């Protein structure tokens, strides 16, 4: 076990690391921090998971975690990438979902497999209308799809379910 003080300290520091593509979200909001534990020689290990296999933000996040920890005086640590269990949008926190909506990105519909199969109802982040249509399943980043609102006519990003 990482000593409680250190654990809380690391958790607080990690909360300062933002997602490089959606900077309103912390990596904790995104649910990509899987564990904080102690290595054999006592140093903390931070296990993180990538969102998408080819997500170029993953390496940036790793580097950002390292520099944030160092900035706060923690120099002896290890960051471990774990792909299993695979990241799911269900791990985005309630706080993260609220921040996404405020930022203008429709948060993922929290319905697991039905959502992955495209059976979901997406509300417009501007006017909250549910009359929206899919423009493309692939958007500005791997995690987003492009939608359009049929009421206010605004195009918007949707954080798609995986």
């Amino acid at each position, binding site marked *: 076990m990482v000593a409680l003080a250190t654990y809380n300290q690391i958790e607080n520091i990690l909360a300062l690391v933002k997602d490089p593509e959606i900077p309103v979200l912390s990596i904790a909001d995104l649910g990509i921090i899987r564990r904080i534990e102690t290595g054999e020689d006592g140093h903390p290990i931070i296990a993180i998971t*990538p969102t*998408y*296999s*080819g*997500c*170029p933000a993953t390496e940036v996040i790793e580097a950002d975690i390292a520099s944030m920890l160092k900035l706060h005086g923690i120099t002896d640590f290890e960051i471990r990438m774990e*792909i*299993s*269990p*695979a*990241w*799911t949008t269900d791990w985005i926190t309630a706080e993260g979902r609220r921040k996404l909506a405020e930022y203008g990105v429709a948060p993922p519909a929290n319905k697991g497999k039905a959502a*992955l*199969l*495209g059976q979901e109802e997406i509300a417009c982040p501007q006017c909250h209308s549910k009359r929206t249509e899919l*423009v*493309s*399943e*692939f*958007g*500005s*980043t*791997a995690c987003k799809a*492009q939608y359009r609102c049929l009421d206010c006519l605004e195009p918007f990003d949707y954080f*798609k379910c*995986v």
Partner: protein
Amino acid sequence: MTDKDMLFDYLLRLGDNSLILGQRLAEWCGHAPMLEEDLALTNIGLDLLGQARMFLSYAGEVEGNGRDEDRLAYFRDTKDWRNLLLLEQPNGDFAMTMARQFFFDSFQYLQFEALSNSTDERLAGIAAKSLKETTYHRRHSTDWIIRLGDGTDESHERMQRAIEALWGYLPEMFDMDAVDEAMVVDGIGADVAALRPEWDEYVNGVLTEATLTRPEDSWSVRGSREGKHSEHLGYILAEMQFLPRAYPDAKW
């Protein structure tokens, strides 16, 4: 071949499939018929690249000769590549790209589904992660097959031409050689021959909805498992490998 050699070869097949198709899709960057599609093709290519990195890193560790993902991607010549012949075929027109994508997505979806139950935990983890992405890929290419097949006279004709041009590359996906058999016996690999009926059912359903005609099984080519490739692979590698080969110590 030792067990280790076979696992290495098996992982190369999986990684090379993703890498070569990803490289092909990257060629569309800035050239797709519309912006949304440009983003889609390159996003899919990026997913494939990510998958390739996971498979090739693992392959390098299994081999144990100090080759990492980059070494395997940039410093192997054509005869050492194990990607399916289908995937190195040129992009052609948009119909050709989508037909290639649809046939492979439909295959890879089933392959990853099977591999996510592998007794090799690391392989199972990569497959389970990638399956989520492939689910999106398959839906995207399926939509296009239907939209173009059941579209205008010209789009229908081009789509029919594309599926006929690629049809003979498809049987290779379901081949089982000694490595495949050994991997199945060990519970590591997927029995791809056994995936054929389900693949047929899915593909037939989509072709019917797209008003396309399933081609006759009149010709087939194979050879990728022994490193025998079409002439196209060399050109792909020339472009992909040029920089690291010319400047082996380059960093970015």
